[in-house]
């Protein structure tokens, strides 16, 4: 690797670069203002004030009516766990949960745990483009359901889900509504104030704040049982001394995200489309997965047929390009991404899905570099593939079930 190796980061749905302004705003809270925000003395007071200011910024950013509806947590995963566990505990006469087949593992695995405790979980199906069927959803709503949890935007495809509409439908049945909005924040306008959403989770590090800070929005008057016990912090709803430097950083990040939202919607969308069409034009046998009409502006997920995602990423990495894949081999499981399988993406392509996710730091030059390099990588890997022959798929000539027959390939 040479020192001037080019580096293009297109994995912003995994995590984002901490904005230098965010970092700057955090520094005093490591050095000068180190007091505990719960302390009564002069070391605690300015820290508490800064934390409350950050809380106000976050509330403004997501359109919460009251600052105290914002609970700071360690990460969105914690917020997701808290929301589901709370709803189940607070509504003992409602033994069901509705969610989707394409949620983040933070929801999926919490649901699996609740299922073991006797909770019935309905996983809403998605169609080939990852879209939900609201009639199926309507048919499952009842007074037996404690909570509906639907992601605002999908991490792999960027698909945007109609959470506001779904929250309204849930409220008619007195059901709590939670949304995992991690992938929506800073990409689409999020306003809980004029919605029926009771709980919303997101994390800082997808929003150019650092890792290790998350938020659970909890609408006033929502029945709630804390997940973390052991202190009065966050009004007793999340025990544990607040991570004040990171909370301050998150406040700054929310301000900046609000400022940059129009840019993401216009400039980043253009760059994303430039990347998408550049690749589709140059590479045969590939297609975009998800709902092209209705997805976050920074995300594109492309399925390359007859190649395997991990091999693509290794080649990309050598070229300084960072993206991610739903391939089985990158995760240690033997099956490709459950999101891709839920959408019934054929196996010929599901192993070769690559997600490119941009941010406001992505430049046109970077996108052009990727568009230039991708076709070569895919062509090279297909050359090794027994499913590919002379620039075309060759499924019929390679079938390992086939046994015997000498020299059928010679």
């Amino acid at each position, binding site marked *: 690797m040479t020192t001037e190796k080019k580096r293009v980061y297109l994995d912003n749905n995994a995590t984002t670069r901490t904005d230098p302004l965010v970092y700057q705003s955090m520094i005093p809270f490591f050095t000068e203002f180190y007091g505990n925000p719960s302390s009564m003395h002069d070391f605690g007071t300015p820290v508490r004030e800064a934390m409350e200011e950050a809380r106000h910024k976050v509330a403004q950013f997501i359109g919460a009516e009251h600052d105290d509806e914002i609970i700071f947590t360690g990460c969105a995963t914690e917020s997701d766990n808290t929301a589901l566990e709370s709803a189940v505990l607070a509504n003992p006469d409602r033994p069901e949960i509705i969610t989707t087949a394409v949620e983040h593992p933070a929801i999926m695995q919490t649901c699996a745990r609740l299922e073991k405790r006797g909770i019935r979980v309905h996983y809403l199906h998605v169609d080939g483009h990852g879209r939900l069927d609201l009639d199926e959803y309507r048919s499952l709503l009842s007074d037996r359901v404690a909570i509906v949890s639907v992601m605002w935007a999908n991490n792999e495809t960027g698909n945007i889900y109609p959470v506001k509409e779904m929250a309204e439908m849930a409220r008619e049945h007195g059901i709590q509504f939670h949304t995992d909005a991690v992938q929506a924040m800073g990409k689409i306008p999020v306003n809980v104030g004029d919605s029926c959403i009771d709980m919303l989770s997101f994390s800082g590090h997808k929003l150019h704040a650092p890792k290790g800070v998350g938020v659970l929005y909890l609408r006033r008057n929502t029945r709630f049982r804390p997940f973390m016990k052991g202190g009065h912090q966050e009004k007793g709803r999340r025990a544990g001394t607040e991570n004040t430097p990171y909370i301050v950083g998150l406040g700054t990040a929310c301000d900046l995200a609000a400022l940059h939202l129009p840019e993401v919607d216009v400039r980043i969308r253009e760059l994303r489309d430039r990347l998408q069409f550049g690749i589709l034009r140059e590479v045969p046998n590939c297609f975009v997965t998800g709902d092209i009409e209705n997805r976050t502006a920074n995300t594109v997920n492309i399925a390359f047929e*007859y190649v*395997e995602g*991990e091999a693509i990423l290794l080649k990309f*990495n050598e070229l300084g390009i960072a993206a991610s894949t739903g391939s089985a081999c990158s995760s240690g499981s033997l099956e490709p991404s459950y999101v891709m399988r839920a959408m019934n993406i054929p196996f010929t392509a599901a192993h070769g899905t690559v997600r490119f996710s941009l941010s406001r730091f992505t430049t046109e030059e970077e996108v052009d570099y990727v568009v230039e390099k991708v076709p070569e990588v895919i062509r090279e890997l297909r050359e*090794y593939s027994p499913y590919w022959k002379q620039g075309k798929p060759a499924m019929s000539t390679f079938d390992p079930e086939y046994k015997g027959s*000498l*020299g059928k390939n010679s």
Partner: protein
Amino acid sequence: MWDYSEKVKDHFFHPRNAKIVEGANAVGDVGSIVCGDALRLMLKINPETEVIEDAGFQTFGCGSAIASSSALTEMIKGMKLEDALKITNKDIADYLDGLPPEKMHCSVMGREALDAAAANYRGESYESAHADSPLVCKCFGVDEAHIVRAIRENHLTTVQDVTNYTKAGGACGSCHEKIEEIIERTLREMANDEAASAEKDRSRTGEASEKAVPETPRELSAAERIKAEADAEIRALEEQMQRVREEAQAKIARAQEEARRRDEQLRAAKEEELRKAAEVSETADEGPVNENVPFYAEVVRVINDMKVALAQDGGSVELKKVTSEKVYVELSGSCVGCMMTDMTLSWIQQQIMEAVGHYVQVINTAAPAPLFPE
């Protein structure tokens, strides 16, 4: 991203023999696109010498699948077929300076392709044994099928058993829950299998033999035996726990009894001591007593003040005797058993000394409170 060795990276980025071999007479196809990895191994074997003169591959798969294929072709080129077939999947992994445990199946696929190619060369058919079983223990690379097989063959019932037989779960422990699930499921399946085969046996032997054969205790099936053993083990454990509990309770009772006895002895000793002291002072104090002591009036006044003060806390003090050197009092009420008794005494002593203007000793004649109130 995986931690690949430099050798794996080298073979991935610069694969050797990634080509179609012209005139190949041994072709092995394994894997499938569903699983995410597939390999075609092409060999040109000299029919006279059985030496592998050329080898090539085409692989659909991840970095280590391509690297394993490349390594395999390098290893076997120039070898006699029978020698090549001695190569194990571990040899392939070792050639690459190791593979991550999750990726060992890539080397297995390479080995299988070689078997398939040999079968193809000899005109035999080849049945893949490459099981796509999810990896359970990442530390030791043990998959579910392997664990299920060990459970079935050895009647394993605990995670510890599974670890002993397969190593699975022997390191970080993060897969223990998964292993417990597999055990539970497998044992249930075994019980079902047993029940089904018992059912079949019954229907096969039929009613005719049912009359002829006298009722003999049926030999227990494997699953039933496991359940019986487990039940017995649980009962034994419960009994053992009961014993331990009883022993502990007996020990506590004995200790309490011992403490009470020692306390009584102490009290008796103390009373005896006080009695003796009183006797000694009565006989030894040659000097004047009570009214005859010059400062008797002051002492009475102080004690009366103290009574008022102590009454606020529910205690009381009684003046017993005054000599020219000692003042005997008896603390009563809440003063008895109070942890502050000694402080109260020294307070009284201080007050008396201030009143009379010289040293006097204040002695409490009340018996100490029992350590273990009944």
